[in-house]
């Protein structure tokens, strides 16, 4: 499917929730190269938003603009109610940013990094120590606290990075590829951390090139490709945009399988697994008609599972992945 025919689902139904981040027609180019070609986003407060896209799609540029690190060439953006161009300091006071490359001071210890943040957030000495100790504890960095941050592993650096971001209790947190380069365990730790952040009520703006990560964490996902939003919505909504959904019936008794296979002629057979696949978009109505049909033909599967296309399918459909660069997906 080509990206130009993909609809961009409209946000909301006349009840706009207060936006933590909203952008209209955000643009940025470097010389002749257009990096962002009109980005519209609306991210409700307290949600997790994932900006998903291949390398070079412009994800980091979006984060840099919204976090006031660089300026946009055109369009408008509001972050935490502040216009990024008119009131960058208002934005800065409300956000925390953890970039793709660790933003820790490697020459000083983890604890000193935390106290540095506390000082820059103008906490009192006592308060600063308390917050630093608490966050070091929470991110399992107590043992390493007195060692220079340059000696930390990738996962530890990333944890320290996020701990530093949290010192000022930001309402909106930007995480630019927070798990890139982490081993699976650290990656799952990071997911855990991100989930905890949301329960605290903060808004998380996450960029990732990993589909499972967006699927796992985000309330809403936007797929960025070639500087444009190719599609956005919940993971489920996005999955419905591409074909490939089916209902799978699995049998334990070969005889039952054979008789079912003869009845359900349009099903795809998997003789080895004793399973049949019926195409379905996963909607309630289709599911009910399948169930009714199975009842009427007295077929009783031992296991019924509904499969929607996963985000891989969506991603490649939307980003025009004709060459299916599977190796970029873990």
């Amino acid at each position, binding site marked *: 499917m080509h990206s130009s025919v993909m609809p961009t689902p409209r946000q909301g139904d006349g009840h706009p929730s207060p936006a933590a981040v909203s952008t209209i027609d955000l643009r940025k180019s470097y010389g002749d190269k257009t990096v962002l070609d009109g980005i519209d986003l609306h991210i409700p407060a307290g949600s997790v938003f994932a900006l998903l896209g291949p390398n070079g799609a412009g994800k980091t540029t979006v984060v840099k603009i919204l*976090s*006031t*690190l*660089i*300026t946009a060439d055109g369009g408008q953006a509001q972050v935490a109610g502040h216009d990024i161009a008119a009131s960058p*300091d208002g934005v*800065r*006071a409300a*956000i925390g*940013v953890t*970039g793709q*490359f*660790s*933003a*820790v*001071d*490697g*020459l*000083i210890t983890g604890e*000193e990094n935390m106290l*540095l943040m506390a*000082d*820059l*957030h*103008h906490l009192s000495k006592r308060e600063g120590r308390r917050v630093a100790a608490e966050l070091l504890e929470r991110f399992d960095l107590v043992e390493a606290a007195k060692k*220079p941050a340059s000696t930390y592993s990738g996962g530890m650096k990333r944890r320290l990075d996020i701990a*530093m971001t949290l010192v*000022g209790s930001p309402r909106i947190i930007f995480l630019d590829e927070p798990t890139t380069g982490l081993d699976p365990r650290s990656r799952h730790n990071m997911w855990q951390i991100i989930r905890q952040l949301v329960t605290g009520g903060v808004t998380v703006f996450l960029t990732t090139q990993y589909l499972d990560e967006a699927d796992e964490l985000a309330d809403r996902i936007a797929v960025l490709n070639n500087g444009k939003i190719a599609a956005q919505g919940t993971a489920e909504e996005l999955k419905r945009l591409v074909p490939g959904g089916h209902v799978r019936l699995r049998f334990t008794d070969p005889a039952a399988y054979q008789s079912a296979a003869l009845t359900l002629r349009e099903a795809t057979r998997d003789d080895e697994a004793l399973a049949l696949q019926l195409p379905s978009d996963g909607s309630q109505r289709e599911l009910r008609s399948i169930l009714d049909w199975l009842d009427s033909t007295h077929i009783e599967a031992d296991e019924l599972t509904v499969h929607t296309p996963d985000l891989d399918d969506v991603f490649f459909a939307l980003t025009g992945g004709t060459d299916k660069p599977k190796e970029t997906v873990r």
Partner: protein
Amino acid sequence: MSSLALAVRDSSTMLRRNLLHARRYPSLTLNLLLTPIILLLLFVYIFGNTMSAGIGGGGRSAYIAYIVPGLLLMTVGSTVVGTAVSVSNDMTEGIIARFRTMAIHRGSVLIGHVIGSVLQSIASVILVGAVAVAIGFRSTHATALDWLAAFGLMALAALALTWIAVGMGMVSPNAEAASNNALPLIVLPLISSAFVPVHAMPGWFQPIAQYQPFTPVIETLRGLLLGTDIGNNGWLAIAWCLALTALGYYWSKAAFNREPK
């Protein structure tokens, strides 16, 4: 918090950070200190008797007196090369991006570097000065006021050279480039009146030695510490320092405000 209070508070936080770096990794500063100290010993003990002919005789002890002001200034030059390197290193670190996205006084990162560097320069000057005194340097004519003025001029020169070095560090893509770009701060004192008087140099070279910032500052220091004639060098020295400070300040600020890639 008023913007001035914010500036002071954030700058002092950044200063603490820079001093912490210097304390944790003193090798850079100490290595740079070796140059003026080695030059001092070399010129006094190895070349001293011969070189003193250039200043009209008087042997080794007269030559110590002659070169110490220049070497003290060279010490400042060497120290700020370290500043250029550490600024350049710092700018490649992700933490600078973090600072830029925080609601802090924007200039505090640079101000922290500058104050830290001036303090290091002063400490280095005191150290090299102590070595000079240990090998026989005596300021024969200086009153307490002269000492104070000399100290003030050194601090002003340190401020000027630091801002220039910060600018050099800002525009250098990495530490090696920063160290190369800062080379004039080492070379200029060599071709000033630090080691021999300007009038003892070849005629065509004299303008180069004369019309550069180090010479009037060195001549003024010499006048303050040893009672030689200062003439208009005092005003020239102050003008050079203020001009370089302003230049370095605006250069660094522009470079820092330039959009990061």
